[in-house]
Every structure is written in structure tokens, then in C-alpha cells.
């Protein structure tokens, strides 16, 4: 039970706005202390986990390319492209992206998207351009945040429909331990209702972006 203090350390540190990297180490040390580890064992356990998880940092291998392309006008091109598409509002752009991301993830194409490879160089500038084409005011911070959010939500509530994704394999493994034999198809079919709910709920939210930004004009009329 003492391991729960590690959560308190994490929350307190983040709320106090201490550098999150230090908070992480402090929380890990607390968890290790609760598990009765010596300082040396704690360092070794964190180090082992740190080394085993290097692959998450390896994704930054794409940064030199993205940086070069941005210096040669990638973001500006994304804006120019949007300027040519008059009927595509911010809400419609994000709705189309959400649907495309869910659909491609559902057939296993989870790589077609992503925060570093797609949102920063392409989706976010297009969303900003779409927002700027609209006459009403909007918060550029929120436009960018919603672009990133839409990528995550499309991925999370699409990928579980695919049969060979890691989470399906994990579920099968765990269930096998309880003597429950299920086929991947039986698990993936149950992800469909949630995927539809996500399209309706988040799709509705992004379409509301268009309506909300029109409102100041109607208030003036009143």
C-alpha cells in the first residue's frame, strides 16, 4: 500500500511546478522505497527500464527531415493548400482527419499519422490556416491543441478494430490465463461500437468549433 505514496509525490511535484524530470525520479525513488529496495537496486531498476524504453525516444529520428522541410516552406505550403480549399472549414478538416485516422488505424495502418510525422508539419498548419480563413476570432492555442487531440483520439478509437494490434494480443494472452479462449475477431468486433461513439462525440466537438467561432457575429446583431 505504501507504493501509493509514489503517486502523491508525483502529483505534489507536478502541482508545485517542480521540473517534471526531477519529480519522476523522486516518485520512482518513493516507489522503490515502498518496495523495500536499496538505493543501488533502485538506480539499477530505473536504469534497466530506461534502457529498455529507448525506442520511445528513437522516434525523434524524423526531426532532421521535418526541420529541413519546414525551413523550405512545408508549413507555409500546408497553409497555401488550405487557402485553395474554400469549402473546408476548421471543423470539417478535423472531422475528415478524425475519420480517416480511425479508418486507417482500423485496418492496421497506425503509422499513417502521428504527432511528430503528421500533426506538427501538416495537420496543425492546415488547421490554423482554416481557422484564419474564417472571419470570426479563434484561439490559435486551442486550434493547435485540438489538432493534436484529434490525432490521438482517431488512433486510440480505431486501432482496436484491427486484429493484430498489441492490445488485442495482450487481452488474448491474459484471458487465456483464465481459460477463456477467444479469437481476435471476437475482441475487435467489440471495439466497433466505441469507435462509432468516438466519431460521433469528438466529431461533434470539432464541428462545434465552426459554430462557436461564428457566435460573436450573431451577438453583435442582437
Amino acid at each position: 500500500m505504501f507504493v501509493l505514496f509514489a503517486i502523491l509525490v508525483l502529483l505534489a511535484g507536478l502541482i508545485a511546478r517542480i521540473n517534471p524530470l526531477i519529480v519522476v525520479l523522486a516518485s520512482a525513488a518513493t516507489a522503490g522505497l515502498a518496495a523495500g529496495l536499496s538505493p543501488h537496486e533502485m538506480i539499477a531498476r530505473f536504469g534497466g527500464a530506461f534502457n529498455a524504453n529507448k525506442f520511445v525516444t528513437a522516434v525523434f529520428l524524423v526531426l532532421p527531415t521535418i526541420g529541413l522541410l519546414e525551413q523550405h516552406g512545408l508549413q507555409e505550403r500546408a497553409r497555401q493548400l488550405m487557402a485553395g480549399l474554400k469549402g473546408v472549414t476548421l471543423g470539417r478538416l478535423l472531422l475528415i482527419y478524425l475519420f480517416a485516422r480511425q479508418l486507417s488505424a482500423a485496418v492496421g495502418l497506425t503509422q499513417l499519422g502521428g504527432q511528430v510525422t503528421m500533426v506538427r508539419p501538416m495537420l496543425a498548419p492546415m488547421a490554423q490556416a482554416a481557422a484564419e480563413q474564417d472571419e470570426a476570432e479563434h484561439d490559435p492555442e486551442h486550434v493547435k491543441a485540438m489538432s493534436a487531440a484529434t490525432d490521438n483520439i482517431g488512433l486510440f478509437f480505431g486501432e482496436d478494430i484491427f486484429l493484430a494490434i498489441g492490445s488485442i494480443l495482450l487481452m488474448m494472452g491474459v484471458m487465456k490465463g483464465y481459460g477463456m479462449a477467444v479469437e481476435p475477431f471476437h475482441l475487435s468486433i467489440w471495439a466497433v461500437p466505441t469507435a462509432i461513439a468516438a466519431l460521433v462525440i469528438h466529431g461533434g466537438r470539432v464541428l462545434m468549433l465552426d459554430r462557436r467561432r461564428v457566435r460573436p457575429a450573431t451577438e453583435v446583431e442582437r
Partner: protein
Amino acid sequence: MIGLGLVYALAGAMFLGFAVVTLLSRRDARRWATALLWGLVSVSFLLGDVIGDTGNGIVAIAIVVVAASGRTLAKHQAADESVAARTVMAMRFGNRLFLPALLIPLAALGGTLLFKAVPGIVQASNATLISLALGAVLAALLCMIWFRPGPAAPLKAGVRLMDGMGWAALMPQMLASLGVVYAASGMGEAVGHILGYVPTGGNLFAQVAIYCVGMALLTALMGNALAAFPVMFAAIGVPLLISAQGGNPAAVAAIGMLAGFCGTLMTPMAANFNLVPAALLNLRDPYGVIWAQMPTAVVMLGANILLLYFLGFPS
């Protein structure tokens, strides 16, 4: 057979390049600590499999100390090319600019399919990451041939983005490691144990709600639905929902996992999804993406509870 070693060698070389470029191209006082930071990350990539768990722990702590020292990552001077110049280039290069950017995910995709279909070239379990790395190298080479920007240009362009992200860039790996330490210290069992004590009075809806909310909560704490799933499935899913209430096991498992994904949307612990984009997009609020996701995540959690309650229990 090609394995993760190739990816780590490439990443290690890149971060070493970041360190060298920082030292050579900057004159401000912060260049030393910045170069040291990327140099340490490079050590982790190049030598991580040699220096042992304790060695890696010391490198990780050194990275934290340097990154938190406040002596790194000073702002770069304004980009070499102004917005006006970039707009002209965008007109000139046109939509072809998207091709190298799209090449990276397409290479990741194509490589994954190819290397799974033709075994023996690349470790099947890591085919996606290896393909992504190869795609990144290919796209960088394409840009070098097309733009002819000079040999150090990709590293300078990359380190500028890296410095712009700062500590957030290192959070995914740090938090993934913290999640491992949590799991090894019995965090999941402790939370599952507590939730098992919440009185439900045998009410099916209350049990479904606790299962789904617990899945989201534990995912938010551990940063990963895959770590939360076995715990909550064992604590509530199997004994209460499946054995006692006769729920459909596949529905309980699948919708439970998706409830966990709602937790992923709400937590800074899932840094690669939530903190990295906020840093990449230069948001003022490092939690801006989480706030943008929060309404969807909360409503989706409710939707999953209702879906499991109404669809998962044939009676």
C-alpha cells in the same frame, strides 16, 4: 538479421551530431550544458546495452540533473529564413514538399508489411520501428539531394526542433521507466485491491462503472492501458462481471481496454501522446493537449460504461 541495434546506432549518431553541432554553431553560455545533455542521450543509445542496469541508471540521473539545471536549451536565434522567404519557397517547391514528409509514415507502413511477409531480413517484432528509422534516413537523404543545404543542415534543423521541445522530449522515456518501476513495486495490485473494496451492493451498473473508471484511473496513473488491463481484469472483470454476473468475456475485455484508452487521453504520464505534441506545437500550456482531450475522454468513458452495461450482459 537487422534488429533494434540499427535504430539505436542511428539515434545515437544523431544525438551525438546534435551535441557536436551545438558546440560548433553556438557561441552563447548555454551551449556547453546543451551539448552535454544530447551527448548523454547519445551515450544511452550507443552504449546502453553495454554499461549494464546501474550504468544506465547513472546516465538517466545525469540526464535529469543536466536537463533540470536550467543551463541548457537557450532559444535559438530566429530561423535563417524569414516567413516571407519560406512562403516564396513554398510556392516554388509546391506540393512536392509533402512527399518526403509522407515518405516517412509510408516507409514505416510498407516496411512493416514487407518485413513481416519476407522474414529473415528484419526482426519481425520491431519491423515498424526499424522501417520508421529507415524511412527517416531515406527522407533525409532525399531532402539533401533536393535542397543541397550543406552537410550539417539536417542536424542543425533537427536540434532546433529538439531544443524547442526541451525536457518534454525526454518525458516519454522517463515516464515509461517510471511505469515499469511502479508495476514492479506493486502499484497495480494496490489500486486494484482498493477498488475491490468499493461497495457495489451487487448492483451491475455500479460494478461496470467501477471497472471502467478503475481501468481509466489506473491507466492514467501508469500511463499505459496495457499495464492497467491485467490488474483490473483480474480484480473486477473476472470475479464480478464475468463469473458472478455472466458477462460476455470478450465484451468485458475489449470495452474495458477502451475505457483504459480514455485514461490515456487524460494523463501527462502518456507523455508521447500528450506532452510531446504540446511541446512540438509550442503551446503555452504544457497540458494544453490534455485539456483539449478532456471533454471527449470523459464522455467516451461514460459511453463505454453504457455500451458494456447494455451490450455485454445477455440475459
